[in-house]
């Protein structure tokens, strides 16, 4: 068993003037399951990176203080040694897998640390068994779902038999089922194998049951460190920072009163008739025989498991993809006959990765880009840009480079840039990824208010049930590309069969 000791730890990234970690002192006992939470940018990930040695070995910056894992100073110990004690599971499964097949991915780490050749295949089999992917050895990584990829990443770490497991928001890209699978595996590693776990997340409710200790961070400091039994007795510190608590219904009620569903619907904006879509080279349809009609003023959530076709459907609704069969009518026009330039100002989209939209040198230029392309009058452009900056609270970053902002700020910039075009149909893909509760609600509040005021339509894809309950008037539930429910969120969530 390996304890973790951190004493007087300070860390400052090269481009920053204030430390990201500011006098961190914490002892984590062997076998602990620590839930580490806090608002976006509070230093959670940086703290994890100091524990596994990525800081300072793979990251520049100024560090002082000591970090020891099992009495070994990870600051001076080579990472090839530290990784045999400390495993690190990253947030996005897409960016941490290196090999082509599942077996190779797991073998990669084992080979790096010199595990004897004859022991490697046994370890692969065992690790896959532990993550519930028995028999997946020869599967191609590209053919796996996000949940399966994250389990492969976890298998590649636990095959190295670390005593400490660091998980950096590992479920933020996953649907509820995949999340449940990951949590069950981590719980088993902690309780059965005695692995010490440090789990960062914004979704406190998901992890709260598994942990025995809760650590809350803000502005690079630990502001609360208590056993689980007493951590949530006073929820004020969590709510003050906009962090979810096991019982955070108060936020939900507030939002419902603010954003009551519209009762009168306007003209039909989108009509999907018998549409299906198949990606090139794919053997099956990603969207199957789907029918739905969407009117002005609706706020709609698209829900479903990873790979159920949510993003494909959003892209079809926005004219970014053309259906293989059936017809998508956008504001009365067949999408097959429309070019994207014809949809500018009618459809706005923000991808799950908002960075793909950020191309300008400053936040202000980013927001100006769309209205300027529409050749609006200078006065109109100025009004729209000022409104968007104001509504999405970007005033203090207006002259900053978009890519230098935090994830939450980047997403707000992308949403503001799309919103400045005042599109009739606003499409938002997975707004929850990497966002804390406060940022998420701020974004959705601002957007929904703008949508309601302009009698426009918002369609967002999400795994987040509470977000749907709070903001959507209607839910489209997908399963393997098929629309299995179209109606009120309350009805969907009360139906256990769904």
């Amino acid at each position, binding site marked *: 068993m390996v304890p973790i000791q951190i004493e007087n730890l300070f860390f400052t990234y090269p481009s920053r003037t204030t430390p990201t970690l500011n006098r961190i002192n914490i002892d984590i006992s062997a076998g602990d399951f620590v839930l580490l939470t806090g608002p976006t940018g509070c230093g959670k990930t940086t703290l994890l990176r100091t524990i596994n040695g*990525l800081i300072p070995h793979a990251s520049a910056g100024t560090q002082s203080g000591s970090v020891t894992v099992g009495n070994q100073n990870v600051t001076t110990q080579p990472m090839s040694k530290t*990784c045999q004690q400390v495993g690190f599971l990253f947030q996005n499964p897409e960016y941490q897998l290196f090999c082509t097949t599942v077996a190779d991915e797991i073998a990669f780490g084992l080979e790096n640390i010199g595990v004897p050749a004859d022991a490697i295949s046994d370890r692969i089999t065992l690790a896959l068994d532990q993550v519930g992917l028995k028999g997946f050895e020869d599967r191609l990584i590209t053919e796996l779902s996000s949940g399966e990829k994250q389990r492969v990443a976890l298998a590649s770490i636990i095959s190295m038999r670390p005593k400490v497991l660091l998980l950096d928001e590992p479920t933020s890209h996953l649907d509820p089922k995949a999340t449940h699978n990951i949590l069950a595996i981590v719980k088993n590693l902690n309780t059965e194998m005695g692995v010490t776990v440090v789990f960062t997340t914004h979704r406190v409710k998901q992890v709260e049951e598994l942990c025995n200790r809760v650590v809350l961070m803000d502005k690079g400091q630990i502001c609360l460190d208590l056993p689980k039994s007493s951590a949530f007795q006073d929820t004020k510190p969590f709510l003050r920072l906009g962090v979810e608590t096991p019982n955070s219904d108060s936020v939900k009620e507030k939002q419902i009163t603010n954003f009551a569903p519209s009762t009168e619907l306007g003209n039909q904006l989108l009509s999907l008739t018998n549409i299906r879509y198949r990606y090139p080279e794919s053997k099956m349809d990603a969207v199957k025989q789907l029918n739905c009609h969407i009117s002005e003023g609706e706020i709609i959530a698209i829900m479903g498991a990873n790979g159920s076709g949510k993003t494909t459907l959003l892209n079809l609704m926005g004219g970014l993809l053309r259906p293989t069969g059936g017809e998508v009518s956008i504001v009365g026009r067949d999408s097959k006959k429309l070019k994207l*330039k014809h949809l500018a100002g009618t459809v706005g989209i923000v991808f799950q990765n908002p960075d793909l939209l*950020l191309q300008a040198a400053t936040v202000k230029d980013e927001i100006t880009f769309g209205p300027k392309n529409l050749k609006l009058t200078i006065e109109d452009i100025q009004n729209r840009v000022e409104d968007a900056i104001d509504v999405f609270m970007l005033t203090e970053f207006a002259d900053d480079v978009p890519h230098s902002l935090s994830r939450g700020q980047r997403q707000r910039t992308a949403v503001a840039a799309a919103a400045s*075009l005042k599109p009739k149909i606003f499409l938002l893909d997975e707004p929850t990824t990497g966002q804390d509760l406060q940022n998420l609600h701020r974004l959705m509040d601002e957007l929904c208010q703008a949508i309601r005021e302009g009698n426009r339509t918002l369609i967002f894809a999400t795994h987040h049930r509470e977000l749907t309950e709070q903001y959507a008037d209607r839910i489209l539930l997908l399963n393997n590309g098929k629309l299995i429910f179209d109606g009120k969120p309350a009805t969907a969530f009360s139906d256990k069969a769904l």
Partner: protein
Amino acid sequence: MVSTMHELDPRTKIVIMMLCGCLVILLDSPISLLACFLFSLLLIAVSSPTLKQIRLLLLFLLFTTWGLLYSQAIFYNAFPRTILFTLVPSDFPVLGEWTGGISVYREGIFHGVVQSLRFNTTLVIGCYIIWTTQSRELLVALMKLRIPGTLAFMVTTALRFIPIIVEETTAVIRSQRLRGFRYLRLNIFASINGIINSFRPILAGIIRQATHLGESVESRGFSTESTSERTPSMASGMRSMDYCIVTVFCFSLIAIVGLKLIYFCYANGIYYASWLRQVYTFTREIL
């Protein structure tokens, strides 16, 4: 499907590519260059490519061949040259007067064929390596060939990111269009500026992803400084087949260099021997 060509040690594949690269530079005759190109196609054929890979390769070959043939055919400036047909006569207003006429030359087409055979041979072998080698095997092979670890990792991740770059570029272009941007406009500076700006999210994304991937592999014990502690468990090592292939290729290259040298000495009046006349003929006609 895993073929014998997949199972070759990645170092063998890299050596094949390097030696073939040297060969196609040394060789001048279309016959021998065609033989090299056919050999590269044979490598691909026996490595059981998928239909998608075949289509992609054909697309690459079509574009490069067309580009080289077209450019060489009309821009060939050596003499003698034979005009096959004229695209723009020299007395055509402005363009004709300015360029002196644009014609398609027979020698240019021939030169284009030679150049495209050279280029396509290395292109096909490059595809063969990428399609038959695991990322981690390629990484370790490059490091074993004394390529600096950081560079080896960059090369390997660059190859891994190609599909992601294609996907993200498509998303960026679509989002720009949806925001009213037109890539082709009368104002060429605005178009160029827009295209340059499109690279910003793509580059930022690549840097971010490469950083994450680098951290992920370092967190699993990979070091760019040393491979000595690694277990070569699943990656195939150099076997007799590898040694045979590398030996054959090395001897072929040495033999061709030798023949070329002998011919060079003859052609430049440095050395002549009558008993080497068949060698001179062979080198001139075939190599």
